């Protein structure tokens, strides 16, 4: 399964168009909304994970968005965890709604990068300051 994570920025006039609907219907893409900030009449941001059997379909879908005036950037922000400094307290798991951070075997912290939606809440929740956002 091909996957791509992108940050979409669209101008105010586009916030009311059903663009994601077309991605699903016309390009057969599965969409996972990681983050959304849409206020009618203002510039909107959507962070999406797109998946389909073929990477080509994903690119076609993205081309379609660009044609409609959406700016696309790959989601390059990542969470980095300095594991050897972690004390496995669990504070960060309290805010991680995606389930990327959890306590696993022996109550040690487990970070499942694939589940992370880069909401950044864990960055300030960690009392050891060992979680950072990198660009």
């Amino acid at each position: 399964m091909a996957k791509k994570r992108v940050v979409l920025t669209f101008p105010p006039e586009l916030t009311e168009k059903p663009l994601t609907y077309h991605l699903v219907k016309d390009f057969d893409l599965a969409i996972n909304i990681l983050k959304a900030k849409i206020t009618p009449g203002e510039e909107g941001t959507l962070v999406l994970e797109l998946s389909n059997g073929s990477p080509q379909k994903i690119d076609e879908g993205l081309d379609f968005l660009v044609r409609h005036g959406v700016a696309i950037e790959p989601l390059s922000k990542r969470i980095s965890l300095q594991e050897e400094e972690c004390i496995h307290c669990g504070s960060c798991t309290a805010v991680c709604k995606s389930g990327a951070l959890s306590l696993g075997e022996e109550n040690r912290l487990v970070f499942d990068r694939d589940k992370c939606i880069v909401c950044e809440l864990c960055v300030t929740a960690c009392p050891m300051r060992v979680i950072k956002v990198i660009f």
Partner: protein
Amino acid sequence: MPMTKSYDEINEKIKTGKVVVVTAEEIIPMVEAEGPAKVLEKVDLVTTATFGPMCSSGAFLNFGHSDPPIRMTKVWLNDVPAYAGIAAVDAYIGATECSETRGLEYGGAHVIEDLISGKKVKLRAVSYGTDCYPKKEIETNVGLEDLNQAYLFNPRNVYQNYAVAVNSSDRIFHTYMGTLLPHYGNATYTTSGELSPLLNDPHYRTIGIGTKILLAGGEGYVAWEGTQHNPAQERNELGIPVSSGGTLALIGDLRGMKRDYLRAATYHKYGISLFVGVGIPIPLLDEEMVRQVAVSNKEISATVYDYGVQRRSRPALGRVTYAELHSGEICLNGKKIPTAPLSSLYKARKIATELKEKIQNGQFTITAPVAKLPYRDGVKPLREEV
């Protein structure tokens, strides 16, 4: 006659390598399977531990005298003010004190962590100058090896149970109980439950003033009752407090402490704190003691408080067991709330195991308390005169 054991007998076994020690978690299934009498015949000691954030921490330091000497009236360590209103070259560096140049990023807790990690810290002191202490200013670097005395003193630690925090409000709260999400988005808790020292000795029979402990990996002692010691807290049918109960004041040499078990922390928009690892052995003197240390997470409950209400008395919303808290989700008035700990059970287990091994190897003997912790009638609030 029912079997009893004395401190001396147990210490003799430690010296001859015959002692049998298990952790407070390991003893639970043993007692379940064989009953307290059988377990008492086999096991002599149980180790308990905790590794949680404790703001009420700090260290006393003596710097030695310079030539000419100075009577330090104000002291900074790496730009963090230390309390110098004691003898000429004595100071107390409090864990939560912030750096004057770096704010919440660096504080007293970090100074202590740096010292035990073998780093030098910048000492700056000023004075008004006296006939016997003429020097008015000094700036130099000091490490642990340069100091005469350097000992951790926790006015409060090892809380016997504590609150579970939730937030009913509609905004995020940044607290000493971690980041609390709005609309009961999460619940945080902070003791090691069935492994926690005072939950295994609820009436302070063996843990008292003078009890030898493992403090941040080194040897330490229980010095006194801790601040806000509250043995009068409501207790459940097993005699275990249902919220913050007793506390201990702890003391121990910084030399011999390990960074693994002492770490500075910053709680976002709240402040600096210090994680201190504590391990306490509990001797199995009789069957009653075995029954107490066999307590398990499903028998220990904690009270849930609404930290979204900014008052001294936060509304209590209900009670949950540590077994529920550990399951990752509690149910409060029909609502499911995900849970997360703030203290490290992983580290607490390491400490309990390390203490167990030290005892087995004959490197750690036990002491009977020289005095009992007092029973008091609760904690007084601060009234404001108007």
